[in-house]
């Protein structure tokens, strides 16, 4: 075991994040605040309630997740891709670290950033709309689980990527659309068929529903399916990373 090595990478990643705090924290918070302002305060007042909750409040958990999912992938994929790109990866590869330790360090740092981002966004939201959190402990727990899943996905993308374009590709073409269509702005129950059934095929619906439940105790899909989705969101990228380390040679020639 090399806990000091894990700590060194973790601190390095956090220091990089602090240096670019504007880009990595302030900018996403401002973007989300604009959503609260436009959809929550401005349009929200003219929208009917969703599942019995004021529209402005209803969209808060989903918008937090939108920001967490994109930033988790961005942070974690960049964290491992950048040393590959500059060549400083040589030092990580030559260090006495196991693959599990390397993943823990990079993903751990990315998860920390995501959780801080989510909490800052939540506080910002309270400036614009009414927010209640019925299950605060579970709110944090779900947030951590979802962040771990998407940071692992980001790490996997960073391992595979051979260019900055590829780094942008999956977040832009897959995750952002799925998140937008994942029930952030509406309750799935409010949709007409066939859109209702189509939407239920989107895994992010389950995450949003479960996370919103921790705020307002309302759910689009049964809570156990949300927990299952969180489990899968961690297990699938973890298995993919393990597979790469065992067979592929993405980091080493």
């Amino acid at each position: 075991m090399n806990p000091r090595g894990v700590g060194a990478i973790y601190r390095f990643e956090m220091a990089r994040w602090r240096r670019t705090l504007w880009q990595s924290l302030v900018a996403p918070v401002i973007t989300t605040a604009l959503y609260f302002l436009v959809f929550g305060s401005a349009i929200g007042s003219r929208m009917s309630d969703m599942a019995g909750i004021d529209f402005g409040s209803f969209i808060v958990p989903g918008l937090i997740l939108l920001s967490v999912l994109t930033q988790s992938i961005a942070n974690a994929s960049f964290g491992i891709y950048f040393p590959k790109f500059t060549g400083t990866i040589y030092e990580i590869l030559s260090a006495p670290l196991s693959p599990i330790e390397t993943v823990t360090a990079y993903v751990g740092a990315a998860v920390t950033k995501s959780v801080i981002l989510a909490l800052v966004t939540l506080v910002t939201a309270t400036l614009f709309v009414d927010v209640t959190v019925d299950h605060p402990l579970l709110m944090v727990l779900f947030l951590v689980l979802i962040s771990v899943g998407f940071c692992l996905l980001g790490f996997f993308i960073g391992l595979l990527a051979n260019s900055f374009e590829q780094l942008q590709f999956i977040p832009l073409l897959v995750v952002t659309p799925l998140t937008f269509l994942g029930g952030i702005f509406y309750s799935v129950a409010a949709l007409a068929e066939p859109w209702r059934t189509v939407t239920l095929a989107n895994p992010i619906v389950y995450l949003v529903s479960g996370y919103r439940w921790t705020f307002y105790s309302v759910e689009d899909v049964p809570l156990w399916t949300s927990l299952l989705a969180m489990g899968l969101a961690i297990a699938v990228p973890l298995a993919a990373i393990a597979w790469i380390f065992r067979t592929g040679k993405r980091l080493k020639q």
Partner: protein
Amino acid sequence: MSETVIAIEGLEKAYAGGTRALKGVDLTIDKGEIFALLGPNGAGKTTLISIVCGIVTKTGGSVAVFGHDIEGDYRAARTRIGLVPQELTTDAFETVWDTVAFSRGLFGKPRDDAYLEQLLKRLTLWDKRKARMMELSGGMKRRVMIAKALSHQPDILFLDEPTAGVDVELRRDMWELVRKLQADGTTIILTTHYIEEAEEMADRVGVIANGELVALGRKDELMAQLGRRTFKLFLDQPMTSLPDGLSDWSLRLDDDGATLCYDFDSHAAETGIPQLMRKLDELGIAWRDLTTRQSSLEDIFVSLVHQGDRS
């Protein structure tokens, strides 16, 4: 018998593209020696170092560092190794101090500011400790790379072409440091293109060409073999054959008999040249010009590789 710190047996590397960069290399490195790996571009020097350090995966053979297999027991092996890679790759926004402290932590060593201070002073980087990497010159960056490699007090130090792009002064400093490290018991393996550099620094030299170790031995023995010069006399009158009186020297005729060539060992006590000149005088062989030329590295590699082919 001195202790073996690195044991390499039958090491093979075929890159994904099909390049066979190493073709069964056997090599042992002894504790406390300075070993120079000499070879032309593309010989496989960096590949060999990268495999021992865990950056490239071997496709055959075995490597043990202090008896620890580099794959089965990689932690024990890697903790004892420091590497200064050929390319200067650094985190542009990190400060000198942070990047060196990072390296130490990465290799699992507890924080030790006093040691890092002493290390940075030794490499004349102390004044620059708060500077960001991008603010440093190439030579300073290379010193930081050395500081990073030494940050965890390794027993083995790899220097991959340490003098590429380095001025005379830094080169001298670097050799001084290497000697001090050796005095402290560190084993040093360096790669170079230059025979002179290997000659100046190393205790033992290995010559690698096309992924094969074509010569290996103590520096003095090998230098005798490598340090051949060719002495050329441009004759007034071309000769069709060598006169009998010159049979003591292994001479050959070139340019249709217009040039007399003599290969000699520049390190030998007796080169035989004065005697040859007197003999030519006696025989009345006139010449108008002469040159002596160090066999180039390419010549040497070619001859070594051919020797390898024959045996």
